């Protein structure tokens, strides 16, 4: 028996957006090696912005006509994949613009000068004196974005795992690069890494069980095996759920959420924004494909579990948010609750489920990045003033910024005329139409609870005591301002006129099986 290796046929043109992002990341690494220290920032920022824009253009131009499976069918470029990839690219662009914020200095200021050095050591101060910078964040971000794009297009459990690691590893590093409170940041990085590895192990275990069940890692083969009733059912459902654990960890759903607040708080704030928005898009995109393509046949078995996870996420996220005193931790728990809301949409298992999930991801991404960008701008004594009390009276000192944050809080709450409302409406109505009314009720109640903390922030900003410390607001750079305004415009736009994006999501919401 002679097995000849047949090279799979790969549609390189269709993969061009992905290739552009990776190449851009590699060029960024070379820039780190060859460009002078002073010019790196000036090269890296335009390079990475250009990479993302170019990849987006390539995606829009090439994508729609080159849909299909490629690379021995482990990669699928279908409507949802393209839409999610585009979403990742746009959100990553906004996130990157915020990362480039210099806070009035010469370099990207939220990142440490030398991540490898011991915090507070003489070497560190030496590096500071010599003007060391950490412009590696830009290629790292691009690598992560590449992983995310691969993540949503993977049609194979193994490729999905590789993509998971590709997107996660740069994130682990990025999380540890905060300039201030470096120990907190490094602790967060380590926690994220350890728990991420832990969850990866669960994922791999699940993947192996599914392989044992279906004899293939490919989603369509798994689906085929389920529909043809191959027996071995003992492997199937645990396998599905263990794979789900790996993905639920990434979105921070309860009970796999414990890392979220610590990591969100410790990471450099622009990274938190990027991570919250883009990782959610990628992980939910992958989850959609796994659930809708591979294991739809046994949904009766896993739906109750996912419903329980959604309920727990909404309830715990909402409850924990209201006792936090740190703005970043509030937003972290709010992201846990939002993960629950998105799961409510995902669970409905029809077209509306797909389109409403994608729509919600878009609305959440576009309000999260500006929210964290604003958090990064409120500072006190050289570091971020993320305690709620420090935000008192912000409305009088920086009315525009406070107004923007207020608007975002309304969107987080889900007040009409913001995208938060349309997004929640979309996922809840999708769930109700499929008989998950109780889940939607829990969701509405949880939203009501979260409203308390969002409005508390608003009240503190506008009605709080004027003389609350020495909090100042940094004048944002043009890039950050653009990112914030873009996020606000989209949040308002999707609230007032959601139909274009909803229509788009609906017309493309069919997975290629």
């Amino acid at each position, binding site marked *: 028996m002679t097995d000849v290796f047949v090279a799979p046929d790969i549609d390189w043109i269709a993969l061009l957006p992905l290739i552009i992002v990776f190449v851009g990341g590699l060029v960024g690494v070379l820039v780190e090696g060859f460009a002078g220290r002073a010019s790196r920032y000036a090269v890296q920022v335009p390079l990475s912005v250009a990479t993302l824009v170019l990849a987006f253009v390539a995606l829009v131009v090439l994508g729609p006509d080159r849909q299909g499976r490629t690379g021995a069918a482990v990669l699928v470029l279908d409507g949802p994949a393209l839409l999610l990839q585009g979403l990742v690219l746009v959100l990553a662009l906004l996130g990157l613009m915020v990362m480039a914020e210099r806070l009035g200095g010469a370099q990207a200021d939220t990142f440490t000068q030398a991540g490898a050095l011991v915090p507070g050591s003489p070497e560190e101060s030496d590096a500071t004196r010599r003007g060391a910078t950490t412009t590696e964040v830009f290629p790292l971000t691009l690598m992560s974005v590449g992983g995310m794009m691969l993540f949503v297009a993977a049609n194979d459990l193994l490729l999905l795992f590789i993509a998971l690691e590709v997107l996660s590893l740069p994130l682990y590093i990025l999380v540890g690069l905060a300039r201030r409170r470096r120990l907190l940041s490094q602790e967060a990085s380590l926690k994220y890494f350890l728990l991420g590895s832990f969850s990866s192990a669960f994922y791999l275990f699940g993947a192996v069980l599914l392989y044992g069940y279906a004899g293939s890692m490919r989603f369509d083969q798994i689906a085929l095996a389920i529909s043809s009733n191959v027996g071995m059912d003992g492997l199937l459902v645990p396998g599905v759920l263990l794979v789900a654990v790996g993905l639920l960890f990434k979105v921070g759903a309860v009970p796999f959420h414990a890392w979220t607040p610590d990591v969100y708080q410790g990471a450099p704030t622009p990274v938190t924004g990027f991570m919250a928005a883009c990782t959610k898009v990628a992980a939910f995109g992958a989850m959609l494909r796994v659930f809708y393509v591979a294991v739809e046949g046994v949904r009766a078995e896993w739906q109750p579990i996912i419903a329980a996870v959604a309920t727990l996420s909404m309830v715990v996220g909402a409850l924990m948010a*209201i006792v936090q005193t740190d703005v970043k931790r509030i937003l972290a728990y709010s992201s846990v609750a939002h993960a629950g809301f998105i799961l409510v949409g995902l669970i409905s298992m029809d077209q509306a489920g797909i389109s409403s999930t994608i729509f919600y991801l878009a609305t959440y991404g576009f309000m999260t990045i500006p929210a964290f960008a604003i958090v990064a701008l409120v500072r006190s004594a050289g570091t971020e003033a993320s305690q709620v009390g420090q935000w008192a009276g912000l409305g009088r000192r920086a009315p525009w910024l406070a107004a923007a944050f207020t608007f975002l809080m309304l969107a987080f709450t889900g007040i009409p005329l913001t995208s938060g409302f349309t997004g929640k409406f979309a996922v809840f109505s999708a769930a109700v139409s499929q008989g998950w009314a109780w889940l939607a009720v829990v969701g509405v109640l949880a939203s009501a609870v979260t409203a308390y903390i969002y409005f508390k922030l608003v009240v503190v900003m506008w009605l709080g005591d004027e003389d609350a410390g020495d909090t100042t607001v940094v004048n944002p750079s043009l890039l950050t301002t653009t990112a914030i305004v873009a996020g606000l415009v989209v949040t308002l736009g999707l609230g007032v006129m959601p139909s274009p994006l909803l229509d788009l999501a609906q017309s493309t919401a069919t997975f290629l099986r």
Partner: protein
Amino acid sequence: MSLLESTLLSVAPAAADIGTNSGSYAVVDGGVAAVGWLMVALPLLGAAVLLLGGRATDRWGPLLATVLSWSAFVVGVLVIVQMLGLAPEDRALQLPMWEWVAAGSFSLTAGLLMDPLSMAFVMLITFVGSLIHVYSLGYMEHDPDKRRFFAYLNLFVAAMLLLVLADSYMLLFVGWEGVGLASYLLIGFWNHNPAFASAANKAFIVNRVGDLGLITAMALMLATFGALDFATVHANASGASGTVLTLIGLALLLAATGKSAQFPLQSWLGDAMAGPTPVSALIHAATMVTAGVYLVARSQAIYDLTPDARLVVAVVGAITLLYGAIVGSAKDDIKKALAASTMSQIGYMMLAVGLGPIGYVYAIFHLLTHGFFKAGMFLGAGSVMHAMGDQVDMRRFGALSTKVKITWLTFAAGWLAIIGFPFTAGWFSKDHIIESAFTAPGWQGWVFGLVALLGAGITAFYMSRLFFMTFHGKARWTDDVHPHESPLTMTVPMMVLALGSLVLGAVLYPTGILTGWLDPVFGTAEHGEPLIPLLAIQVSVFVLMLLGAGLAWKMYAAGDVPQEAPHGSALTRAARRDLYQDDVNDTFFVGPTRTLARTAVETDRDLVQAGLTGGTTAGLTGLASYLRKAQNGFVRSYALTMLIGVVAILGAVWVMQ
């Protein structure tokens, strides 16, 4: 969008029940009318450039705003030229712009309707508006913030044009709110003065009451006709029940009373004089306050079917015209006297539209002439204030005719027009309203006719009082003023408006231009016979005018005017206080609302916050702090949490299977 659509917008069910025939207008094909949207877009662009451009536009911004306003006028003229090339009955052109709301069975296209009625308004708005832009170049020259002022002026012009050009009640509402916003911003333009800022608030809040009417009317239309565009609503009006139509008519009237400062929502107009004088001329005399008249005239298809609502319109007009005239007779503030006069004159227009088909043309006619002579007089008042160091108390004016000759002469033209001196613009338009009032059936003819006649006499008195107190008699100036004539940028617009005040009537009416132009919109009304002969009416109007003016001459030009207002009779004192309108509002609306608000706050604080939410929040917080213990920062316990989760999930699966 079907997701949201199906659930959110299950309105518009009734449309099918009454057999909708979707009426329609001819759609524009080609010509200037195809770019009719430029009329709205140009001034809007100006507002955007000036507001967003910031200080960079300080130097040329005001000029740009003025040019853009004139450009809108030019486009309007070209559209009219194009319409003149069409047969009279084809002169209603619809320009659909974009699909605005598409929701299941209900769809609404945002579009413009260019017909003789709307174009008549466009001419008034853009011409008088542009003149006032020019005047403001001089009047606001030294204001550090004049860029913002011109931005608001342009914003107003754009919104007002949108209001009159809209082809649906929905889009009209956008313009309606837009002029409300611009008016608010301009009244409070000098908002560093708290009194001015609160005047802006008052105008805004009173107008909200009116807006409630418009929203109610739209809701009723949507429920009854399933549509909001003029064509469909008006075509189907005859199919609706009388009660609904009356309700719609009354709701629209409520909207009109708010915007046009008619009884009982007139109280804001006097305070609105806090704004810069060009604003009072443009918004609170010539254009915005006539929006109510436009709304009623535009909705004639509804009012034609509901005589009850129409009668209420006429009654409101009659009350307001007397009210304004009485208040105007007692005011010593030149701008407030003019504001009262505006109320009264719009009362005439309301009375006219309330009389039915016979009155529409005269209402619009009076609206146009009034736009000229009242704007002219406001600009004159601004010029006088300019000369007198921003004083407004007429008791400290007098004998200005020699000092500010151009202002005096142009003001005189407006004065002659408003008191209805024969062959001036006001004589043509007002006399016809009075004559029409006498043709109303039964008791109405006597009541409305006599009220209108009496109003004319009082008008002659209070306007002559204002004129003589300001320009004639003895000088009662404060020591520090040195009256001087205003610059040409200010006087030229006044001259143009003065000319219009004198000849506009003669140009438009005897030649049949106006009636011919508006005929396709309003149709030809059969004239009933007036209760008393036409000649008798005309003579008595003339005699009353002479009496009123003569009395004013005797009291305020020949006699001495005390520099401090005398105590006065009970009526004078009441009129000075706007016939106690504010006191009535305070007693019946403001006071109870305050009490309600206070009670609500107290209830919220004592009961809801302390009791209900307090309890809930405390409970939730307690639960959360319990959960919080799990979040201890140790990565090992986080991993344990995850493991417990996995075990629980697999355990659940095991149990279920």
